[in-house]
Each structure stands twice: as structure tokens, then as C-alpha cells.
């Protein structure tokens, strides 16, 4: 939690020497609290004060960075409990777990398939963030070979699920120039695991059954010199996950409780009797950090990645659709032309309804600054002028020689003006709601 101006003032020299270009230390402190000044501008501040201020201004959930031989991944730094308060910033990771009990060939095949997975969602490229390799064999040599095999087929970040220092070292040695996450230090092995992490300069996961034990361990490990941590609070199902992850997020944000201010790693497939897809979805919405799946199933992965995109969308900046002329179901010169705005929900509901009819159609998406039809019309962003302009910008007349344009029923009032703006066009008034498009087209468009 950030310090107030007065709290910062107490840490300053209080000499009002003006070297910072502010009249008083207090004025400078106020600017610092508002994040409009930089502490470095005061040449007289003590080292002790610097450390205190740095600690206080550190994010409540520490950022964790992983690197593959090419890809990078960041998680943490979240600042709110609810996305509408600001936004969720760093998308939680979706990783795939593989065991070293598979042969090198099997591993390579699985990794190559999952690594090549890409899916397009409203123009956004979605894919897996990386892989977690588990030392199920318990044998350092086998594990090292498995890690090497995986690294041969993916450049994405890795997580090394290796519970002993020897296994972890074998995994680390099989990689170069990357920054995997080590997993995991617990009450029994933490000293040795912290040592390995420290020597390799790698982030380390800390695992315990209770939050009390977890906080104890992170404190000790931090003292041992490892600061980049992830937490595994040993979750056992939907409710345990919701309770522990909510508590962790609240502790970090509301109490500024440093010992638990780290991203959380979860394994939704590990709890028997739990539907891994549903638990993963819960953890996407409710405070998961790195989600490690056990199955590569596109029908689940696609849904989860889309959900993550939705939850992490900035609510202040809704996804807009690129204005332009969209083709639905392969339209030709006889297909109807409809116009709507570029607010994503508006666009999707219209496009979806039209698509659902199975009829080919043109959809002109006007640049209404991302507002819905009624809002945009009320704000003057979706009027006759705008529509006429976009008809010209996107050369609509060339595509639809029939020169008929269907406007949303909600803006029926602009049809007169639009006739003036587009003199050789016929203006048709469509339904108010997207859901009625099918019946409208059925009765009004007979080609």
C-alpha cells in the first residue's frame, strides 16, 4: 500500500532546502505520494529512507518473469480485486504439464503439437504460455534428458517440477539462456531448494498446506536470498481454491502483506472429482497466476483462453472492432447490406445473428468510436453523415450495386437525413434488436 504524503514527509530530511525544486519537503512529499515526482530529485535523502520508500512503493503482488529461449511471460503486479475497479493487468499463464516418464520422442511430439497451437479470437492470437515438465521418474538423468527434449521443440518459458535439489539442478543444466520457474520448496527441502535457486538466479515456487506455513516459508526463503517467488497453496477443489486465492489477493492488496504477495501457481487437474476445465475457469476469474493443465484439448483450451481474454480486457477500453465492410457467409452483389457500430458486443451480436441465418450478407461496421448503436447515436457518433462517410471510405457501392442499405431500427429517425447524404440509395429500416434480424431478412429480402 502506498504511503501518504505525510508518511513520506517523515522520511525526508525536513530541511526545506529546495534542491528538489519544490518549496518545502512537504510539498515534495505530496508530489511523491501522487506519483508526480521522483525520489531521486532529492539529493539529501538517507539510504534508510530510500529503502523504506522503495519497499512501500513495491507492488503488492510481486511481478514474476519467466523466459524461454524466445518467449517471455510475466505475471503479478495486480492492483484490484474486481476487474471493473481498474483492470486485471498481466494475464494468468496457461501451461501444459508433461511427465518425464514419456520417451523423448513422445515428449517431442506432444510439445510440438501443443507449441504449434494458435487460435484467433477477434483478431487476437491466443496460444499456450509454456510447459511444465515433471520429474516423475525421480531420476536426475532422465529428467535432464526430458527437459532437453522439450526445450528442443519449444521456445516458450518452462516450469521445472522437480522436488529435490538434484533433480532441479539436472533440469537447469539441460537449459541455457532461459529463466524457468523452479518447483517447489516446502518445509522439508526449502534450504537446499533456495540454495539452488539462488545460485542459478531463478525464481522458486513455495508450497505449503496452509497460508500460515506458506508465509513462514516465504519469509525464510527471502532471507536466504531468493526474492522472485510463486506460491502453491495446495488447493483441493473449487471452494478451497476460491477461499485461499481470494484471501491471498486480499492480503496482498488490502493488508499489503508482503510474505504472501506473490503470484499463485495452480494445478486444476490434480484434484480428483473436480472438472479441470471448470476449476481452471474459476481460477482465471478468481486470482490464479500460473495455471498448469494436464491435458492438451483444443475444445477446452480455446474456451479457457477466450475466457482469460475476456476477464483481462480493460473494462474502461472495451474491445472495438475495426471499422470496415465485413463479409458474412460469402456475400455477392445481391446480398443485403446492413450497417452497425464498431462496439464489440454490438458487432458480435449482429454478425452472429446474420451468420446464424446462414444467409450471405454484407455488414458495414461504422466508426462509432466503440459505442453501441443508441449511445453512439445519442453522442452524434452514428449519424447520417458518419454512415455516408463510411459507405464512401469502404467503397461499399462497388460491392452492392443494388444500393440498398439496412439501418438499425433504433436509429430509424436518421433515414431522412441519410437519404439526403446518399441520394441514389434506398434506406431500409431494420429491426431494433439483433435477435430479430433473421425474421426481418426472411420477410424483407427475397433474393
Amino acid at each position: 500500500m502506498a504511503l501518504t504524503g505525510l508518511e513520506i514527509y517523515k522520511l525526508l530530511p525536513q530541511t526545506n532546502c529546495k534542491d528538489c525544486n519544490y518549496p518545502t519537503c512537504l510539498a515534495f512529499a505530496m508530489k511523491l505520494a501522487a506519483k508526480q515526482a521522483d525520489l531521486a530529485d532529492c539529493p539529501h535523502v538517507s539510504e534508510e529512507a530510500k529503502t523504506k520508500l522503495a519497499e512501500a512503493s513495491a507492488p503488492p503482488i510481486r511481478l514474476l518473469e519467466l523466459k524461454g529461449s524466445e518467449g517471455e511471460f510475466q505475471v503479478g503486479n495486480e492492483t484490484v480485486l474486481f476487474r471493473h475497479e481498474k483492470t486485471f493487468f498481466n494475464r494468468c499463464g496457461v501451461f501444459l504439464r508433461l511427465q518425464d516418464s514419456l520417451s523423448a520422442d513422445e515428449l517431442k511430439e506432444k510439445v510440438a503439437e501443443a507449441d504449434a497451437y494458435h487460435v484467433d479470437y477477434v483478431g487476437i492470437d491466443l496460444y499456450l504460455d509454456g510447459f511444465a515438465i515433471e520429474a516423475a521418474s525421480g531420476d536426475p538423468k532422465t529428467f535432464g534428458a526430458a527437459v532437453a527434449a522439450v526445450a528442443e521443440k519449444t521456445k516458450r518459458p518452462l516450469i521445472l517440477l522437480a522436488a529435490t535439489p538434484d533433480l532441479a539442478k539436472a533440469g537447469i543444466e539441460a537449459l541455457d539462456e532461459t529463466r524457468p520457474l523452479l518447483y517447489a520448496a516446502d518445509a522439508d527441502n526449502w534450504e537446499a531448494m533456495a540454495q539452488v535457486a539462488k545460485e542459478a538466479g531463478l525464481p522458486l515456487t513455495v508450497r505449503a498446506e496452509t497460508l500460515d506455513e506458506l508465509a513462514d516459508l516465504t519469509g525464510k526463503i527471502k532471507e536466504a536470498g531468493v526474492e522472485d517467488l510463486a506460491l502453491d497453496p495446495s488447493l483441493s477443489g473449487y471452494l478451497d481454491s476460491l477461499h485461499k486465492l481470494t484471501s491471498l489477493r486480499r492480503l496482498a492488496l488490502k493488508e499489503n502483506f508482503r510474505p504472501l504477495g506473490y503470484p499463485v501457481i495452480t494445478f486444476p487437474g490434480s484434484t480428483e472429482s473436480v472438472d479441470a476445465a471448470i476449476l481452471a475457469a474459476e481460477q482465471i476469474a478468481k486470482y490464479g497466476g500460473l495455471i498448469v493443465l494436464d491435458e492438451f484439448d483444443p475444445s477446452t483450451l480455446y474456451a479457457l483462453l477466450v475466457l482469460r481474454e475476456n476477464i483481462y480486457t480493460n473494462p474502461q477500453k472495451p474491445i472495438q472492432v475495426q471499422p470496415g465492410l465485413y463479409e458474412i457467409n460469402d456475400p455477392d452483389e445481391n446480398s443485403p447490406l446492413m450497417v452497425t457500430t464498431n462496439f464489440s458486443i454490438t458487432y458480435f451480436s449482429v454478425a452472429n445473428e446474420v451468420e446464424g441465418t446462414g444467409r450471405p450478407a454484407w455488414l458495414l461496421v461504422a466508426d462509432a468510436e466503440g459505442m453501441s448503436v443508441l449511445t453512439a447515436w445519442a453522442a452524434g457518433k452514428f449519424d447520417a453523415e458518419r454512415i455516408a462517410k463510411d459507405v464512401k471510405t469502404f467503397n461499399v457501392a462497388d460491392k452492392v450495386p443494388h444500393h440498398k442499405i439496412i439501418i438499425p431500427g433504433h436509429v430509424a429517425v436518421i433515414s431522412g437525413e441519410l437519404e439526403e447524404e446518399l441520394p441514389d440509395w434506398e434506406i431500409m429500416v431494420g429491426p431494433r434488436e439483433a435477435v430479430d434480424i433473421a425474421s426481418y431478412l426472411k420477410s424483407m429480402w427475397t433474393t
Partner: protein
Amino acid sequence: MAVEIPKEKWTAQVRKVTIGATSEEGGTRAKTLTVGGESALPFLHYEGSFPNKPALAVEIRDRKPDDWSPLLLDALGETAEDPAKWAQAAEAMGADLIYLVLSAATADGNPNTPENVRAVVRKVLDATGLPIAVVGPGQAEIDNELIVPAAEEADGERVLLGVCEEKNYRTIVAAALAHNHLVQSKTPMDVNLSKQLVILINDMGLPLERIMMDPTTGALGYGIEYGYSVMERLRLAALTGDKMTQQPMIVDPGAEAWKVKESKVGEGVPEAWGDWNRRALNWETLTATTLIHSGANIVILRHPENVARVRKVIDDLSSATT
């Protein structure tokens, strides 16, 4: 180190609403459904009480729908041919509420009639002991024409009638008042609009205990984040004492998820979308469970498998001990 778990102190709770009436209460239902009453954010048992679990409504139609995904129609099979059988099947799936949606037109393309509606409502009431909801096809004039006879036929059964929208709520509310029913108040993903319509309906004399609030949602990938956040905001407002946001919430992930391409279409879609059936099932389930986490008190579902799937999640989340 003893970590103290932070708890929020909420000052208010969600209103309780009961759908359906048993014979003692003037109806014929074998059981009723009560939702709401919680005094904290969803499933945080350690900081509030949760007298009622979120409930599952299963959508049925007065006739076999023309435009449903073949996956759904296959799963439903013959039951989709007959509303009485469909209602019984829904009860067997584990529904808490039968959500009957009336069609604008009959199978032969003629407009639906009050007589037909009465017959269907009667059939469904006779076929199941569960409480029911009856909603129109979503076109103002037709809705009014069909809901009034439905309300008359089900007099005293405390049916959830819908759908009340800002531009069309008076006739439905009047029918609810006249025949002892409840209403579904639906507004397009906006906190203030939700409140306003509840106020307007309440102003007509319908007690708040008879209003379910439907803030509207989008499916996964189609605007779920707007619905999700509006629901979180409504629930936070409710728990901090904003009276007109305290209605329990009903949302329709079934209808939303089953109208999108991901569930409707099996061919000519990207390979990366994966197996059609599993994807479609995930679409409805994940839309539903995500909304349950943002405060939904009733979710409406369509696919039999998903009713069981979501039920298990709700049961797990509602068990007070971990």
C-alpha cells in the same frame, strides 16, 4: 506465523425470492424454489451466510425449436417434441425450475395463440411438481398477448413471468399482480438500468419479493465480461445497502452460449476450436460457472449433461467446510 484472513464486513444482504406455490400456499407445486438471502460475496462462507444455493433452471419450449444446435436436439431426442415430456426430462436432469419459453409462431408458421399457450402451460403444470417460469418469445406485442393467458391459466402458482423490459413491462406486471405471480426484470448490462426497472415495477405495486433481476449477459467470447462485471457491481452494491440492487439475479447462459457459432456450428470452423461437442458443452458450462462466481442466483441451462456438470460445482462451492 498466524496469518489473519481478511474479512469484509457487509451491511446488507440479497433479498429472498420464492418461486412456486404448494397447495398450502394456493398453488399445486410439490416444492418451491427460494433463492437469495446471502450476506457476502459468492461462496465466501467465512464472512456471511448463504441460506440458499444458486439454482438451475432448465429451458423448455412449447414446441420443438427450429433453430437450436443439432447437438442440443440430439441430446434431447424425443423429449423436445412435447413440452410435458420435456418438463419431466428437465426434472430428471435435476432442474430446480422449469423455464418455459413460448414461441412466436406454431410449427406450421401461424402465430401462436392464447388457447395454445393455456394448453401448454396446463400440460407443463400437470407434468411436473417443480415451480415454473413462463416467458414470451421476446417481442413486445406477442409477449403481452401470450403471457396474459399464461398468467390466468397458472393463477396462484407463483410463476416467474417474463420478460419485463424497460419498454414493455406494464402488461406483464399487471398479470403478475392479478394472478399472484413473479416477474423477471431484464435490462441490458447496466447497473443503473437494472435498478430503474426494478423501481418502475415495484412502483406498480409488485413487492420486491416477487422480482427477479436479469442484468443480461453475453456468452463466453461474446461479451461475458460486461455481464460479469455488471453482476459483480450489482452484488457489491446490494451488500453495501443499495436497496434496489438487492434482487436475486437470474441469467441465461444457456440461450447465450447456444446461439454462438462455437456451439452451433461443427463444420467449416478452425481446427483449433477442437471437438465440436466438447467445445459446445464447455461453452455453456463455463459461461454458467463464471456467472455463478459473479453472483448469479439462477442460471438457465439447456443441455442435460451440463445441468449435472454445473450442479456438482454448485454443490461443492456451497458446502460450508473445505
